[in-house]
């Protein structure tokens, strides 16, 4: 909302500089987002108010005139090209040296006077553009008539216009008078009321029109007044100036009065041309099926039966509370005005304006909730102004349909509640001062305040609402900082989150950069990484109104996000890259919220860095990915098993399922080159996925522990020939489970070899085998015997033979 300081000062004195005023307002009332100073560059000596005494033709030019102006020190002659200059006007007048906006270049420059077509000019009569008020350079600005001749222009029409953001529940703050009330309370100044007096003519308004509310649930009150003898025309300069500064466009005197009173009070009003209201009756009712109305903006609106219409004897003449109809609009020929000031159900106004996609200054106020009593206040103010600026003669009385006036709510605020909520007491005298300044009625009873909010504050309904009024005006700077007391809640175990966060920091420690991707993606990207027959993932949830089409679907896999990040970074990274993300897959669930399945997904690939930080000849491969998983699982206290298994979008023969105990916990694989290529990745890239739900189940509360053995272990390196398709893990499984003479055997693979010296169809695996007993140092003989037994077992089970 635009808040001109000059207008605010009609109701409350404000002496604070703009920055200080803005801070006080922001602290207690509403957020000041900025302000504009009008007339900052107008030199008080050089730019002043003048009166036009006469206008004469220019002797040498048809399009120019010679204006005689008085700036308080005798007549001066000015050459002027404006078509609208006329004797009797108050105008803005600048003399040599004044800083003005150049009408042609638009830049601030110093006025230099020169003879124009042979006639010297004593100064310049200014347009809005030259004053920096608007882009209007067609004619000169006409000042309000009460401006004093010779006064510095900055004093006459200079201003500060604040830009204020108010709250969704405070229609009263959208009225400058309502805002002034708050400023008065904050600065402890008296509040002045606008003049609401008007004189009634003989005929009663009821003789002109009848009002029948047919939808009292949506229309709580409807007041109508009649003003005869309207002289349509422009509103006076002072009113136009205020409307412009408040951000509205002047239309004509009648419409301008309705807008002016709305800006002043927060209560929207609507003027009908009485002669276009058919049947001399007004009927607020729901729209009938198929009804249409062309609103003032020229758009034909389809109405539906949930919408409240203002109808005359024949049909809709306005969409209630939102916009009037073209069929009853005031115009140059209007003689009699029917002025509507009504009160509507806020939710209904909001629904209708949302449905029609039509937000207006009126609907923005109605939807926030306005007290019905404000209607009378606004009628009085508008009638006063219509008398002043449109020559109108109001008929006697109002037609006031108000089926069920609501009693004023009474709120009992126990004094102790203030301290209970805030942590500090507020003295009774301060409570009274604040509430009275805000227009509340307040009486003190034993230990409590009986509070009646004013009609313009329907948002205040509960004791805590009153507490807020107290503390914000009292000042949040008076609230101390204290420490929470009392018992701590019981801790809930969160094993999955613990594992997830542990894995997150481990992944970073293992050299992976964490990324965070948009969780909404495109169907096309998902289809590259999700199998079309994957029931959980192939039909992702879609957003009704995505911010962009590439963010339509809730991802059911993180793989696409990671591969996209990899590809995008490859444009500027030469060497190996490792990324991971921790997120959820949104798996649709029938008639319920989706299952948000937590996963860690990582991708890696590229050339390993050599000593000089340049990409070396060696590329990351499957075993880098697997090694990362092994380290991760190991630090989580478990050991993973890796079984060759194909996965969608992964390269067959280069893909494994990771499991821990009985739980499959993830995938490690090379991304299928075709899939990688679909992301514009033209190099081998590897993927890890870990699924936190099974992983958490598989992790024991305490990892296994065995004290270190006191006896040395014996080590033998063995090279074994096995069929080429025998996985190393098969050998290791046999070795791990082999038991002989109380000797524990463990083994690691340290080489795999195929080629010369190894028969076709076989491979050689080199194993480092360690033998250890818990109760003795093994003798050479022990080791040899156990080793031979083990070799026999490996041969029986797996066809492994010692390579010689």
């Amino acid at each position, binding site marked *: 909302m635009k808040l001109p300081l000059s207008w605010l000062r009609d109701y409350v004195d404000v002496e604070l500089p703009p920055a200080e005023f803005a*801070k006080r307002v922001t*602290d*207690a009332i509403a*957020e000041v987002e*900025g302000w504009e100073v009008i007339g900052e560059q107008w030199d008080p000596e050089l730019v002043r108010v003048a009166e036009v005494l006469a206008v004469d033709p220019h002797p040498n030019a048809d399009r120019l005139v010679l204006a005689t102006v008085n700036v308080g020190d005798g007549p001066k002659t000015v050459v002027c090209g404006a078509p609208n200059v006329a004797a009797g006007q108050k105008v803005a007048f600048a003399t040599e040296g004044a800083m003005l906006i150049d009408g042609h270049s638009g830049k601030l420059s110093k006025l230099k006077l020169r003879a124009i077509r042979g006639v010297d000019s004593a100064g310049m009569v200014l347009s809005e553009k030259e004053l920096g008020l608007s882009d209007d350079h067609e004619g000169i600005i006409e000042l309000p008539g009460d401006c004093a001749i010779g006064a510095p222009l900055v004093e006459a029409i200079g201003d500060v216009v604040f830009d204020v953001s108010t709250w*969704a*529940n*405070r229609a009263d703050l959208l009225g400058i008078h309502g805002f002034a009330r708050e400023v008065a309370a904050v600065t402890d100044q008296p509040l002045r009321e606008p003049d609401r007096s008007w004189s009634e003519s003989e005929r009663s308004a009821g003789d002109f029109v009848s009002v029948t509310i047919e939808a009292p649930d949506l229309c709580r009150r409807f007041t109508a007044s009649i003003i005869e003898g309207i002289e349509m025309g422009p509103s006076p300069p002072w009113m136009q100036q205020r409307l412009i500064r408040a951000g509205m466009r002047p239309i004509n005197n009648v419409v301008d009065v309705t807008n002016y009173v709305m800006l002043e009070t927060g209560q929207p009003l609507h003027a009908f041309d009485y002669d276009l209201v058919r049947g001399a009756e007004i009927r607020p009712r729901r729209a009938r099926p198929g009804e249409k109305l062309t609103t003032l903006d020229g758009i034909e609106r389809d109405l539906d039966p949930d919408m409240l219409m203002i109808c005359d004897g024949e049909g809709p003449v306005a969409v209630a509370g939102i916009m009037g109809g073209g069929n009853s609009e005031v115009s140059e020929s209007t003689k009699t005005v029917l002025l509507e000031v009504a009160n509507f159900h*806020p*939710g*209904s106004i909001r*629904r209708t304006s949302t449905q029609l996609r039509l937000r207006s200054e009126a609907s923005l106020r109605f*939807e926030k909730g306005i007290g019905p009593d404000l209607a009378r206040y606004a009628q009085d103010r508008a009638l006063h102004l219509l008398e002043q600026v449109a020559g109108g003669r109001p008929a006697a009385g109002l037609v006031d349909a108000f089926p069920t006036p609501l009693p004023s709510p009474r709120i009992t605020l126990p004094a102790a509640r203030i301290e*209970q*909520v*805030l*942590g*500090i007491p507020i003295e009774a005298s301060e409570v009274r001062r604040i509430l009275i300044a805000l227009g509340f009625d307040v009486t003190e009873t034993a230990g409590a305040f009986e509070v009646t909010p004013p009609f313009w504050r329907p948002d205040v309904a*509960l004791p*805590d609402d009153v507490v*807020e009024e107290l*503390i*914000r005006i009292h000042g*949040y700077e008076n*609230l101390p900082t*204290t420490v*929470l007391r*009392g*018992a*701590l*809640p019981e801790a*809930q175990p*969160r094993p999955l*989150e613990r594992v997830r966060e542990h894995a*997150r920091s481990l*992944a*970073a420690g293992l*050299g992976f*950069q*964490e*990324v965070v*991707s948009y969780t909404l993606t495109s169907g096309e990207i998902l289809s590259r990484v999700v199998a079309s027959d994957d029931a959980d993932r192939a039909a992702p*949830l*879609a*957003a009704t109104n995505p*911010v962009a089409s590439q963010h339509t679907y*809730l991802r059911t896999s993180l793989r696409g996000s990671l591969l996209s990040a990899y590809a*995008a*970074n490859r444009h*500027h*990274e030469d060497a190996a890259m*490792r990324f991971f993300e921790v997120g959820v897959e949104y798996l649709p669930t029938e*008639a319920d*919220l989706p299952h*948000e399945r937590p996963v860690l997904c990582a991708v890696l690939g590229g050339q390993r*860095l*050599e*000593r*000089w*930080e340049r990409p070396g000849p060696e590329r990351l491969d499957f075993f880098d990915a697997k090694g990362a998983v092994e380290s991760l699982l190991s630090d989580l206290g478990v050991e993973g098993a890796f079984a060759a298994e194909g996965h969608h979008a992964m390269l067959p023969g280069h893909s494994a399922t990771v499991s821990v105990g009985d739980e499959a916990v993830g995938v490690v694989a090379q991304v299928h080159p075709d899939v990688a290529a679909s992301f514009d990745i033209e190099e081998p890239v590897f993927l890890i996925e870990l699924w936190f739900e099974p992983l958490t189940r598989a992790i024991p509360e305490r990892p296994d522990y065995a004290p270190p053995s006191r006896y040395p272990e014996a080590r033998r390196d063995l090279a074994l020939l096995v069929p080429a398709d025998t996985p190393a893990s098969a050998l290791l499984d046999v070795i791990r489970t082999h038991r002989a003479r109380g000797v524990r055997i463990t083994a690691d693979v340290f080489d795999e070899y195929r080629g010369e010296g190894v028969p076709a169809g076989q491979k050689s695996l080199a194993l480092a085998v360690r033998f250890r007993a818990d109760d003795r140092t093994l003798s050479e003989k022990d080791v040899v015997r156990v080793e031979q037994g083990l070799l026999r077992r490996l041969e029986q089970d797996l066809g492994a033979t010692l390579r010689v």
Partner: protein
Amino acid sequence: MLSPILVSPLVDSDRKPDTPSNPLEPQSRVAPCEHQTGKVKTSPALHRAFAFGEPLPSARLSRSPTYNFTQPMSTIEAEVDALRTEALEALTQADGEAGREAWRADWLGRKDGRLTLRLRALKDAPPESRAALGKSLNELKATLESELEARRESARADALASLSADAALDVTLPGRPQSLGRLHPVTQTMNDCIDAFAEMGFRVFEGPEVEWSRYNFDAVRIPDDHPARDMWDTIWIDTLIEGERQILLRTHTSPNQIRVMEQTEPPVRVIVPGKCYRQEATDATHEWMLTQIEGLAVDEGVRMSDLKGTLYAFARRLFGEDRRIIFHHSYFPFVEPGVEMAIDCFLCRADGSDCRTCHGTGWIEILGAGMVHPEIIENAGYDSSRYTGFAFGVGIERVAMLRWGIEDIRHFYQNDLRFLRQF
């Protein structure tokens, strides 16, 4: 090929260059065979040679002196002087640590060092000269030992000097690359926020990102036709349930106030981290996917001053101990009273400049907060006349932007390494 810079000059020529050598541990490579006496057998040949006067196969014995035990004192001195001269001369000739070790074995070796043998032969000297000869020989031994030690010290000092000077590193050369990952700046900031609140006894709770409309809006007092819904432009999920659009991407973490209170009894003290979504156009300060942390404390005796104290501690933890905070009036349907919290601008310190961050006001808006609306307390089944509570919501991206001076919120989810690796 190893570059000379990488080779320690202390490494003897007979050592493998890849064995690290620390000049400050000289004993480790001195006479290893003597340090492992248990494993080395005494040579019978040496015993025999001495006992029976036979020539020994070793060339070294060819230099063994013949001993005349009847020489007078002057002769003794002359002999010891000659030995000293010869030994010290040989020591100056000894090249490197290997040479010094050979010299030591030659003269002082426990088995067959020349001086050792000479000392051992003392027992056969005539009693009248034995004391004088023993004294002289022991003095000589001490001299040789200290000379050897001095040579070694000097060699070690020379080597260290050379390591410091001739082999000084160009420390501006790049380090050997290590693989280093980092947590996303939003994760880092979130973790710091969680830590700050955890210190004050807050537990972590998490709720779903895809949320029921009734939790996201209705339960937190934002009914369907309320203008407050404009504060949260919503991305809806197009799945109808019972013919109605009921599911959305949560616009804030506040529905978890309800979820937490439904599940627990007071005292409640939780924080709820998570992603939120808004249907809005992006620019330098607006992003449609964002990360929030919600805080909620409900108990008997929870006061707004506690809210201020809690947020004050948080602000100081995240933005510096000298931070100040202010509350100003605000409106959120689910709190009463409602406030926004600002911290004093630590960038311009309110110097009146045209600060981009605080716009010259000296204050930076950080978060929204307030006292939990009594209707929400009641809806949770708690007695609002007994229990009070506070709630707050922090935008993590905003905190991260302030901490690091990040100018554009859209960097966070572009996943550009050039951005991410700076944190």
